[in-house]
């Protein structure tokens, strides 16, 4: 099963993990990773620990039931060759396939190997079950410039996002050539993944920005209870769900006829770091809070009536014939009915990055959405929100990025191979 490419890290990747440059013998890892969700973890023998396959038709971490924790990282690629970039992606896939089973990033692991070499895994995930770890890779628009001969490969759907009104983007939190989304129910496992993948990339790609997230703010399967954002409201009630195969096929997965054949089975990831001014929000009356969302705070029912999953009735009026759901409420502006049925798969997380210079929590929502065509799905929804959302008074968009997330890879290949016309 294993080939030279998949039998171990490249020498360069090993330089990242183990400065001594020991070329490992390699495990016959190819087929060993075809563990299904809910399968036992090879590393820990813990049956409770769920794992998701790294290899497959689609990358995991998209319609996978949203885990509780996130570590997301965007990278800039250094001045390297196309072949070196390919080698980096191979190394990343190799290490990721191992880590998602609960194995160490490198072949020796954190506590073994040559005594005079640094360990090829950093070690903080030793003894921890993988917690449903998924590692998902994406390519930013900048990767398709002249550096790697990829200009002709840029999918039309991988647009440059427009400037949205009320964007207050900080350049250091925007864009990136590559991204990695690591999700796990254990924050330390997610951090371990990003840390080791960053280490593997040293000399080839460097961290541009990264984000920790907790408290998933969306459900991606019907079995999951709708979680709450830091405004205290349920978030993503109307999210696309994995079980909705037709909806997912229509709104999430790119198809070969969409333009870029190498993206078939992939998707497009929008990330937006949304700072919430929670201090002023907390001083807002319950009446105004519910008006802004268009839903009740407790149950999450639309203000037009019903329970959480009742469709909002935008024509339902109350006193003085005013609509019960405000014209500029979040639920109204974001609703598919107002965007030609456009839907997105949300997979965001809450964040609190300490506090700012003014003693306010640096808190908010790290919004992630997957969609087949950002230009007709994310952009019109965000434009409507940025223009008129009553919530704008309490949010500030500080980070933004768009990535093409390629399809999954077979166990003999690596994620992104199709971009380079490799199998």
């Amino acid at each position, binding site marked *: 099963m294993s080939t030279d490419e998949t039998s171990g890290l490249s020498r360069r990747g090993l330089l990242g993990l183990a400065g001594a440059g020991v070329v490992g013998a390699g495990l016959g890892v190819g087929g060993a990773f075809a563990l299904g969700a809910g399968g036992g973890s090879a590393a820990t023998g813990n049956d409770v620990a769920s794992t998701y396959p790294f290899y497959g038709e689609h990358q995991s971490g998209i319609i996978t039931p949203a885990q509780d924790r996130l570590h997301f990282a965007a990278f800039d690629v250094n001045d390297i060759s196309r072949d070196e970039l390919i080698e980096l992606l191979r190394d990343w896939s190799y290490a990721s396939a191992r880590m998602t089973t609960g194995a160490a990033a490198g072949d020796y692991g954190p506590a073994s190997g040559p005594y005079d070499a640094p360990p090829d895994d950093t070690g903080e995930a030793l003894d921890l079950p993988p917690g449903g770890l998924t590692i998902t890779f994406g390519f930013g628009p900048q990767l398709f410039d002249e550096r790697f001969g990829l200009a002709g490969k840029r999918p039309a759907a991988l647009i440059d996002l*427009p*400037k*949205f*009104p*009320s*964007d*207050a983007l900080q350049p250091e939190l925007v864009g990136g050539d590559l991204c990695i989304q690591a999700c796990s129910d254990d924050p330390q496992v997610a951090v371990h993944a990003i840390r080791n993948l960053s280490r593997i990339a040293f000399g080839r790609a460097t961290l541009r920005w990264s984000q920790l997230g907790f408290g998933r703010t969306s459900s991606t399967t019907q079995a999951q209870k709708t979680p709450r954002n830091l405004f205290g409201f349920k978030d993503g009630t109307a999210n696309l769900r994995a079980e909705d195969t037709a909806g997912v096929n229509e709104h999430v997965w790119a198809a070969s006829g969409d333009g870029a054949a190498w993206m078939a089975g992939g998707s497009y990831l929008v990330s937006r770091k949304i700072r919430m*001014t929670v*201090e*002023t929000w907390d*001083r*807002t*009356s319950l009446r*105004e809070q519910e008006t802004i969302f268009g839903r*009740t705070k*407790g*149950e999450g*029912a*639309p*203000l*037009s*009536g*019903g*329970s959480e999953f*009742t469709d909002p009735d935008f024509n*339902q*009026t*109350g*006193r003085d014939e005013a609509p*019960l759901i405000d014209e500029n409420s979040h639920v109204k502006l974001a609703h598919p009915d107002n965007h030609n049925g456009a839907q997105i798969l949300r997979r965001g997380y809450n964040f609190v990055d300490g506090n700012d*210079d*003014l*003693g*306010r929590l640096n808190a908010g929502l790290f919004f992630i959405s997957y969609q087949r065509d950002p230009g007709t799905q994310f952009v019109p929804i965000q*434009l409507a929100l*940025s*223009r008129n959302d009553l919530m704008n*008074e309490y949010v500030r968009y500080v980070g933004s990025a768009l990535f093409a997330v390629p399809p999954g890879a077979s166990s003999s290949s690596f994620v992104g191979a199709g971009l380079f016309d490799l199998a």
Partner: protein
Amino acid sequence: MTTLSARFGLTAAATIAALALTGCVANNPAETADKTITVDSSANDCAVSANEAPSGNLVFSVTNSGDQVTEFYLLADDGLRIVGEVENIGPGITRDLVVIVQPGDYFTICKPGMIGEGVGKTAFTVTDSGADLSFSGDIEAQVEAANANYKSYVKDQIENLVVGTEDFAAAYIAGDDNAARALYAPTRVFWERVETVAESFGDLDPRMDLREADLEDGQEWTGWHAIEKDLWPADAEAGFAAYDQSTRESLASQLVADTNTLYSNVQELEFTLDQQTNGAIGLLDEVASGKVTGEEEFWSHTDLWDFQANIDGARVLYEGVRDILVEKDAELAATLDAEFEQLQSLLDAQKVGDGFRLYTELSTSEIRAFSDQVNALAEPLSRLTAVLVL
């Protein structure tokens, strides 16, 4: 300084919230269940779980089990005067009415469909719990006076804004940039004092007060801040070209015209008590979101003028209802008095002549002190509506 409870907004009308904030008790709304009276508003009934309660803070938790939008009222013994109401409850939705009730005879009634006489009118008795709920003075007359006074204040500020804007525009068109710069902040003060009213006209606000950061691709930028950038180009991006004369004229004349439109718009405005109390907290939020951070006056750095004006406006709103507040919650009034004073003393320390030091001249610790004091004032101020408007 006042007691801890007042500082945390745990006033008489907020005893429910107090439970949730006390240490490590479970974060469970059921804590209050034993005090809550439930109301089932169905198609043709209004079933109240009790017909008697002790005087003080009552919570009616109204669930709409019908299929029309409903309302619930607590009526005085004449069956007409409204003591408390909760409206716009959609089918299936539960909403609370929290109200302070004196001993006496009342009626409860629901109004599914929001028209007609209502259904399920039932007598409701409030017994004397011994709690002191007496108000002296004629609160209704005080509220009316406050509403009228605020209306006069808004009109006066906008009149001043019209005159100031005309002078500012004339200087700018004439190319007298020194004069225009000198008039900029002192004129904007009239806008900032009533900002929550001025910005309530959805079409005017973006034309008059939009910051460059809030533009979307291709959107034309007009108003105060577009002119500000031209008058203080030092912090503009490389390659920023000063506006030509026709741009100056069109920006200035549109600002004057829009200000006149604003003037006519406010002539017929009437205010309610909750608009005033919410306006006060809205002005504090403006300070917290834009002025304390130095983002409002990005080129002129005259943020403290706006800061002071927002606080002036909030204080006018507060003073207008203060007598009523003293009747209902003297402790909260004392807290707010003290916090307003404290904030004003911080502003006074930055005064230079008729104006203020520039935002860029403030130290990090001075900015931090402003931010902390805005929080210290805004948190108790946010209780005002619930205390006054029942």
